[in-house]
């Protein structure tokens, strides 16, 4: 009886794993089949208005990249504060908890916040509003990884630096950060991968545009928002373009993820 139960349980677990993997495989299969069907050079050389995706891909990457560029110093500095300056005070714990809570806050709420503080006062959607929303989403992720990575730096290294007369700034920048570099890089890449696929916070902050634009002060082309718009159109061709966009978006996210993983594996060796 015990052995029978055991067999049943193991079968159930394996079955559950297979069911889960089946659906996830189905999604990937659909994505590849539909996405590859519409993939051509035309997609990369023309803007949305001409049936391509060039402007929205560039727009999405640009917004995410700018958000990352602002997010890296802020996130890493806040992480440094938590580990190097904050000590074990209540305040440090509090900020750490806040950061964790922000990391899991619904992204649409961040969108509504940015809408209220940027879009309503300026009267229109803009690339900067999108950048701000993505920035708010990614900073807590970078803080968390920096915090975790700096924690792994042996305290002896810091002490050795201080002992030879280096200032705290020098110890942090030249010893601690250098030691934790690969881990932080992974965190940054994963944070980028996370925000580059975001749709909800961009819906009414950046909006999306059918035309080429690199002007962040105006409504800005977004790949994810465009996918949402295209997929809900009645026109078959538009839906097809949406699938192509979805495929490219997923490919981009997965590639950045893999690079991030590779970077952290390199470090462990």
């Amino acid at each position: 009886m015990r052995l029978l139960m055991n067999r049943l349980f193991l079968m159930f677990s394996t079955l559950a794993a297979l069911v889960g993997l089946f659906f996830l495989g189905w999604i990937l299969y659909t994505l590849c089949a539909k996405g590859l069907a519409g993939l051509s050079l035309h997609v990369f050389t023309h803007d949305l208005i001409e049936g391509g995706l060039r402007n929205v891909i560039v727009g999405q990457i640009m917004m995410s990249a700018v958000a990352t560029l602002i997010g890296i110093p802020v996130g890493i500095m806040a992480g440094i504060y938590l580990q190097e300056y904050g000590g074990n005070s209540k305040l440090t714990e509090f900020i750490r908890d806040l950061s964790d809570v922000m990391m899991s806050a619904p992204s649409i709420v961040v969108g509504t916040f940015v809408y209220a503080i940027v879009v309503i006062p300026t009267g229109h959607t803009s690339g900067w509003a999108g950048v701000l929303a993505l920035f708010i989403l990614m900073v807590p992720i970078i803080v968390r990884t920096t915090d975790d990575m700096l924690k792994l730096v042996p305290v002896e290294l810091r002490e050795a630096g201080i002992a030879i007369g280096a200032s705290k700034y020098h110890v942090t920048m030249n010893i601690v950060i250098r030691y934790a570099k690969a881990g932080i890089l992974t965190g940054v890449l994963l944070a980028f991968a996370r925000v580059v696929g975001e749709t909800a916070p961009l819906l009414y902050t950046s909006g999306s545009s059918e035309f080429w634009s690199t002007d962040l002060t105006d409504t800005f082309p977004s790949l994810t928002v465009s996918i949402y718009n295209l997929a809900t159109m009645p026109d078959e061709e538009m839906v097809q373009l949406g699938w192509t966009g979805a495929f490219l978006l997923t490919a981009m996210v997965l590639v950045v993820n893999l690079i991030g993983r590779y970077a952290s594996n390199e470090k462990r060796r």
Partner: protein
Amino acid sequence: MELIFKKLSQLSAGLLFVILAATTAVLYLSAKPAIEAFGIGFLVETRWGVEEQLLVDGTTEKLDVVESVTLDDLDDEGFIDDDEDFVTDDDEELDGSGTREVYGALVPIVGTLFSTLIAMLFSIPIAMGIAVFLSEIAASSIAKPVGVAIELLASIPSIIYGMWGLFYFGPFIAGIFGGNTVSLLVAGLVLAIMVIPFMAALSRDAISTVPDMLKESAYAMGATKLEVIKDVVFPYAKSGIIGSIILSFGRAMGETMAVAFVIGGIYQFAGKVTDPTNSIPVVLANSFAESSGLSLSVLFYLALILFILSFIVIGVAKFYFLRRK
């Protein structure tokens, strides 16, 4: 230099607090007109964008002929509002004819909770199965690549799940259970599939913290795998697993894009699980751009409710189950 560096790091840490405080404050201030107009009753009001007559004595009476939907007759068709109907100008709130628009959050709140519960119902057993399979059953030559695949799947943008749900999964489910291709059930199941990799990866991590020694002692006493997992692994990893479930719950609750495609987006209770309904994030996603005045304030009220709900859920997960050392 030293000082500047320190100040900068303090400033960055402070910024986190400022953002969170500002979010709460801005949402509250933007929601204030709606909070004042509808009060806490907003949470249990079922109508959305319905004209209501203001009577002389200050009480209100509904103009519409449709039956009022109460909690007791969820099965009724209730009322259907087309998206265009709730786009209003703020001056319509109290115009000369003595009517005003009534908004209530009960439909999206119920839709959010039920779609999340459906998602949990299906994702918990499957995610636990995957976690157990990866950590206790599969040989490491299988567990490693599958584990990495699961983690990668957890990073797929949610809009992909929504799109797949709309074009493939929705019709598939409707083919089995009948009903619409967009419905509460489809939304719940798409959410389930979306959170499975996330939940499985977190639970596997929790399970992998169980010391081998404990498991080996149990095996040495003749325990079967089931008994080891049930009596040793789960109790040891319990708080981590519960934490992963609650975090997944929070994630599913605040999810917008995976649900926006498949829930239907209409202000009506789902009498059957195969009926379309609405959820808070989807209301926000669909009607923000075309709202102004009171109807916009109402949306901020909804956002505030969602924010607080997710705050509570995440707080419970973090502080009771996943305390970091």
